């Protein structure tokens, strides 16, 4: 890898350097996702041939008037949303793993998942008559609130150990997630069985019944957060060399870390509003990306995002079509197909 030439982009005050393989890897992942998208849009209760899908996507009028409605209104937004959710989670996971230097870290660690779960489960089980549009707001609010609490709890004044420290963030995160998890499982254990089941469904994570309005809610966040994540990736490299080195390189450690953490939280929190808790993507997408492009974060963050997008769109496609009319939530399919694939990649590389 060290022999690979680099691509360097220099703008006025900004420069970025990445491995020459990265555009190809990103292109490959995007192409793969697009192929899945065509299948995703084409297959279902109402089958449409791949060529007709492409024609409809290009806006050509076809003989069957239903094509336009099924493709553009029902299936396309869902497929795009799945990709976006995966991309956000992948990037979020890559940032948090870089920040904590822990391979087990995932967006869960920021408290977003625990907070969103507790808030959403409360709403579903104890306030079943609340209007539907409360759910995304509640989940988002719960996630962000708990992430803030986590940061405040982990913060410590003083000189030598001042401010934040990754290990304290991890440990406080464990405590906070456990306490909230206790509340969630209390609700699941004692709540009305019918509502409990729909809460479990939400917790499993699905992009079922989503539309363009969800896409337009998610897209602006990604347009803002993903470039910022790419910009922050350089600092992750320095942070990964260890705190002393990072400080020696002149990083304003606390500010940079807070900024990166905020990005990771924002990316994960926005996904829970549209898709519930899709676990595992944030954990494995960065590992997959590391296998593909190495561990320099300029390449890792976008690759993790694209890998995450590919995983979720694939999982949603499989979950929707494998045993119709039952839909298996994407969050579950990811674990079931993602794990063997992930282990295979990990071990194949290990042997080489």
């Amino acid at each position: 890898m060290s022999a690979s030439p680099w691509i360097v982009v220099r703008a006025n005050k900004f420069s970025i350097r990445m491995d020459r393989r990265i555009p190809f890897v990103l292109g490959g992942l995007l192409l793969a996702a697009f192929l899945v998208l065509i299948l995703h849009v084409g297959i279902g209760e109402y089958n449409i041939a791949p060529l007709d899908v492409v024609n409809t996507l290009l806006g050509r009028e076809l003989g069957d008037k239903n094509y336009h409605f099924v493709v553009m209104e029902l299936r396309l937004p869902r497929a795009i949303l799945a990709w976006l959710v995966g991309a956000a989670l992948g990037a979020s996971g890559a940032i948090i793993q870089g920040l904590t230097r822990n391979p087990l870290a995932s967006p869960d660690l920021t408290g977003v998942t625990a907070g969103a779960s507790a808030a959403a489960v409360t709403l579903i089980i104890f306030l079943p008559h609340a209007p539907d549009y409360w759910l995304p707001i509640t989940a988002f609010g719960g996630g962000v609130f708990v992430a803030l609490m986590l940061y405040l709890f982990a913060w410590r004044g003083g000189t030598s150990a001042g401010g934040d420290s990754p290990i304290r963030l991890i440990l406080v995160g464990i405590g906070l997630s456990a306490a909230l998890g206790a509340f969630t499982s209390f609700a699941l254990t004692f709540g009305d069985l019918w509502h409990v089941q729909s809460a479990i469904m939400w917790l499993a994570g699905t992009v079922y019944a989503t539309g363009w309005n969800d896409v337009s809610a998610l897209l602006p966040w990604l347009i803002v957060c993903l470039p910022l994540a790419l910009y922050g990736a350089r600092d992750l490299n320095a942070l990964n060399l260890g705190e002393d080195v990072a400080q020696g390189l002149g990083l304003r450690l606390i500010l940079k870390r807070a900024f990166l953490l905020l990005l990771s939280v924002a990316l994960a929190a926005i996904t829970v509003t549209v898709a519930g808790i899709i676990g595992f993507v944030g954990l494995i997408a960065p590992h997959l990306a590391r296998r593909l492009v190495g561990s320099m974060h300029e390449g890792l963050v976008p690759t993790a995002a694209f890998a995450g997008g590919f995983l979720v769109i694939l999982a949603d496609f499989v979950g929707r079509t494998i045993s119709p009319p039952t839909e298996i939530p994407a969050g579950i399919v990811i674990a079931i197909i993602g794990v063997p694939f992930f282990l295979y990649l990990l071990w194949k590389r290990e042997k080489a």
Partner: protein
Amino acid sequence: MDIARTSNITKRNALHPLLVGAFPLCIAALLLAVMASIAFGAADIHVSTVLDSIFAFDAANTNHLIIQTLRLPRMITAVLVGAALGVAGAIMQGLTRNPLADPGLLGIESGAALAVVGGVFLFRINSLPVYAVFAFIGGTLTALTVYALGSMGRGGATPFKLTIAGAALSSLLSSLTTAILMFNQRSLEEVRFWLAGSVAGREMSLVLEAAPFLLGGLVLAFIMGRQITTLSMGEDIARGLGQSIGWTKLFAAGAVVVLAGSAVALAGPIGFIGLIIPHVVRMFAGVDYRWVLPYSALLGATFLVVSDLVGRVLVRPLEMPVGIMTAAIGGPVFIYLVRWKVKR
């Protein structure tokens, strides 16, 4: 995380007066918790009656019956399971050198949960002893799979590969469990109390069947204290000191499987103890596992007994599953300790 502090290990640490002195105190705390656990509950029983029921049992006395058939098995379950989970967690964190590691990382809890939920779904099993068998087999098989996956490739069972294999397989199994519960309401209703983890309603015979496993696992773990300490400093150091790390890891993992597997069989998946107790212990006992392991056992047992007690006194005459109580009490306490003690 412990690398910086490992240099503190000296011979002095092995018999540190504070650590020696605190030990009887912890034992006293456990005994106190145990007495309270037998005395308080839906009906409060005087301590003298508790002692009578043990030393001068009278089958006609209701209180004696309550103690012998309900409270005593329950207390013993809590002590054994708490100690086992504390020790298993300490070993896992030493073995993987990851502060996020816990017995669940070998997949034992998720494997046990899937086996029980699958058993309820497919074979309609519906009694605690059968749950226990399914849980133990499921947990053990999963742990073996994780260990096998983690040992493939170069370098044998490295902490990184074990950690990743465990996390990945646990997610897979939990997802399968969720999938069953989502589409099968009967299974959900049957097992959701078991899934929350509880030490209530375990028959004495079941407790006695599990006890030899748990005690054996504890002894094995305590014997290995020195080896685990060395291993927790890093494989290179351990190898340099002449340790055969392959065997150490295998035995340590074996102890975890026996301890956590029997614990989950007896009480269902009680999370959190295995994760936080070792952290709390290391905050005062340092990194010498000859101390960390016994203290983890004591503190784990005390914590589970107290959580169980609070869970049934707080909402009398109802009961809160202890798995929920451990996290509800332990979470805030743990956050407080971390803020206070973790200075890095």
